[in-house]
């Protein structure tokens, strides 16, 4: 093989095969039309080259049939590209239910990952193979982008909101992790490694981390420390809504609209409590913008999530 002239990155995820198939189709279309045009131009340029200085070309004005032909054929081909690409895109943007969740925070210039059971790592990400992994990602400063070429997945990590992406690794190994959204001086050093492991190995690796308890535990501690618990009582008598069992359920807002309580809504409610107030409550909650870090936010979210699912959020 061309070890010194690599042409294709390894395909180490379930998605990689789909992307590669699409890629080969696009390359084939490009090669065909480039060759077609190049050959036509070359043949015409040689065959009809000027024989004497006063020669002129024939007067041909055009052909509606040809114009229609080279309008409709490219249109058809591009529509194939669109539909195919959209199918892959839909598949890639919708994480399957029950995917294993890992929280990722980008900051200048490192990637911090936190597993549900508390294991933390920096510029490294350990994932099991054969199981969908969903990354819930936030940024502490500017826009970053989380890119694993061997998995063919990428998503921007945007300050002020959460973004997700998912993949199913298929091949054990160590793969590049790149930041692809320019983020400042050490942008090119904001790199790391993704390690895909056999599930059993992954469990063993997890056992080695997580000294500080699970993410939900850390969130529960914050919930007390930040005095959230003084208003969000479990008995329904508090000044804030009951959080037990609320995750994943729809709630009605003051405005009459309904929203589903998901990670993004919990995050928004902590930072901008006035934005979407639950019906029957006063907009009295103070904002925690600037008081909690992006990582702590994710711990709080994990905690609220664990309240919604007595079995534990990682299941």
């Amino acid at each position, binding site marked *: 093989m061309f070890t010194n*002239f*690599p042409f*294709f990155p390894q395909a180490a995820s379930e998605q990689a095969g789909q*992307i590669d198939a*699409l*890629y080969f189709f*696009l390359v084939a*279309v490009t090669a065909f*039309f*480039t060759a077609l*045009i*190049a050959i*036509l*131009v070359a043949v*015409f*340029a040689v065959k*009809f*080259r*000027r024989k004497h200085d006063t*020669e*002129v*070309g*024939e*007067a*041909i*004005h*055009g052909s*509606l049939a040809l114009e229609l032909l*080279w*309008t409709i054929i*490219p249109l058809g081909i*591009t529509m194939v590209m*669109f539909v*195919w*690409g*959209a199918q*892959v*895109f839909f598949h*890639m943007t919708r994480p399957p239910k029950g995917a294993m969740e890992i929280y990722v925070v980008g900051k200048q210039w490192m990637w911090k990952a936190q597993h549900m059971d508390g294991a933390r790592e920096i510029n490294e990400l350990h994932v099991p193979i054969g199981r969908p992994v969903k990354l819930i990602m936030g940024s502490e*400063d*500017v826009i970053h*982008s989380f890119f694993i*070429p*061997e998995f063919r*997945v*990428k998503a921007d990590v*945007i*300050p002020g*909101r959460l973004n997700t992406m998912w993949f199913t690794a298929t091949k054990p190994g160590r793969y*590049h992790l*790149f*930041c*692809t*959204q*320019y983020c*400042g*001086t*050490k*942008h*090119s050093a904001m790199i790391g490694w993704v390690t895909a492991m056999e599930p059993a190995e992954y469990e063993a690796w997890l056992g080695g981390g997580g000294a500080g308890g699970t993410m939900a535990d850390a969130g529960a501690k914050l919930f007390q420390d930040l005095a959230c618990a003084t208003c969000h009582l479990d008995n329904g008598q508090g000044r804030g809504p009951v959080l037990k069992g609320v995750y994943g359920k729809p709630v009605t807002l003051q405005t009459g609209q309904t929203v589903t309580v998901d990670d993004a809504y919990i995050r928004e409610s902590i930072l901008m409590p006035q934005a979407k107030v639950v019906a029957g409550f006063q907009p009295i909650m103070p904002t925690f913008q600037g008081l909690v870090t992006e990582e702590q936010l994710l711990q709080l979210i994990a905690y609220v999530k664990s309240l919604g699912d007595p079995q534990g959020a990682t299941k």
Partner: protein
Amino acid sequence: MDTTTATPTLNYLNNGYGLKSWLLTKDHKRIALLYLWSITAFFFLGGFFALVIRLELLTPAADLVQPDTYNKMFTMHGVVMVFFFLIPSIPAVLGNFLLPIMIGAKDLAFPRINLLSWYIYVLGGLFTVAAAITGGVDTGWTFYAPYSTSASNSNVILAGVGIFITGFSSILTGLNFIVTVHRMRAPGLTWFRLPLFVWAHYATSLIMILGTPVIAITVLLVAAERGLHLGIFDPALGGDPILFQHLFWFYSHPAVYIMILPAMGVVAELVQAFSRKNIFGYTFVAFSSLAIAIIGFLVWGHHLFVAGQSTYAGLVFSIISMFVAIPSAVKVFNWTATIYKGSVSWDSPMLYAFGFIGLFTIGGLTGLFLATLGMDIHMHDTYFIIAHFHYVMVGGAIFGYLGGMHYWWPKITGRMYPEGWAKFACLNIFVGFNLTFGPQFIVGYLGMPRRYAMYSPEFQVWNVLSTAGATILGVGYLIPMIYFTWSLKNAPLAGANPWGARGLEWETPSPPPTENFAVTPVVTEGTHQYAPSREVGIV
């Protein structure tokens, strides 16, 4: 044609020699030359930055320059090349010089505004150069918030003001062209007799006037956010960084059509002149320019596929982006069909046109990769994109610009140029260009992200090839500089129509008199008919 005849007694070049006669001129031809000198300076400035980038990327480590310097280099390369070279290149030089002559007018509709636009351009350029000299900018030419508004500590405001100012130069040029095409055409010159160069510039002008104001207000808001802490784009101040991307790309995507459409207009002229044959499917080529300009405004969201834009918005932007391919394909096929049964000469401008057709085809088709939703996830912000847009910007816009400069050089200066050297330079640029940017497609699919001062060692081989190509390309750019300068005094006189081409610009002396035409001409037929008409299909 007697080539020994002296140049006409009075033309736009010898009509006054003092500095004042240039700096206060209202003649569109002299203003075009003012632009020519200034954009050439910016081109070599931007080229210098590119040189540093390529040399740094010769090795994986950041050894030639520190990452901080590298970041400033690619930012300044982008800013200078996009705003100070590519956007004004063909419109402000060739368009300025030729558009009034091609439509039989004495000047553009607003000569003073035309001069003003050059001064605005220079002022904006000075701001940007000042930003570069006093420490540089490191945001990337895209100025993405919140990095540009809050995190970067480089000269963002200064560079932003430079771009803001230069935007008005572009707006005024577009305004001038639109009014001129509508109101100044010679009698008999109906819309469907216009040269395709004029159609392309009309379409370009539409983008300039409709898009540029939006980038102007956007960079102004970035500057205001940095300077006054208005919370518009930075989430920490309550802003929305995605809004910045929408506003930025609303202009900056159509802006790539500002760069390529005029080049397409040039190529249409070249293909006709050097095949001595009228264009195949005139109306389709003319309207495809307008279609590109208009559809080009509806596709900007394909820059946001992985940026957290809604999935449905992604679908809509993807399918509209596919539609832009259609008028582009129509153009390529029509140019190719024009050569069929022509009388094809292989003069250097035609070689640039051949190069353009091939390279633009590659550049355009690789653009479809990026408009394809699933594919873009992997390719976004990798070197694949860099390769794609350099195929369009260099292989397209610069090939068109150089082809046009060679074709109209005799008209502008009254002299020919050494054809052998010109062919050599063209080949040199073609080879150097492909060697520079071809490998970047591969290294992009391998996953090398853009804007990386340091990279993984397995990408090195492609980067070495790329740097080697860039060296060849750089030499290729210098050769025309030398022989063009040499030709001003030494090359044979051209006469009014050295190529045996048709079009109003060839019916006035070279160099043209200040008034272009002594008396307004009365146009009697379409400008590119060579052989007597033979009806095949429809017009």
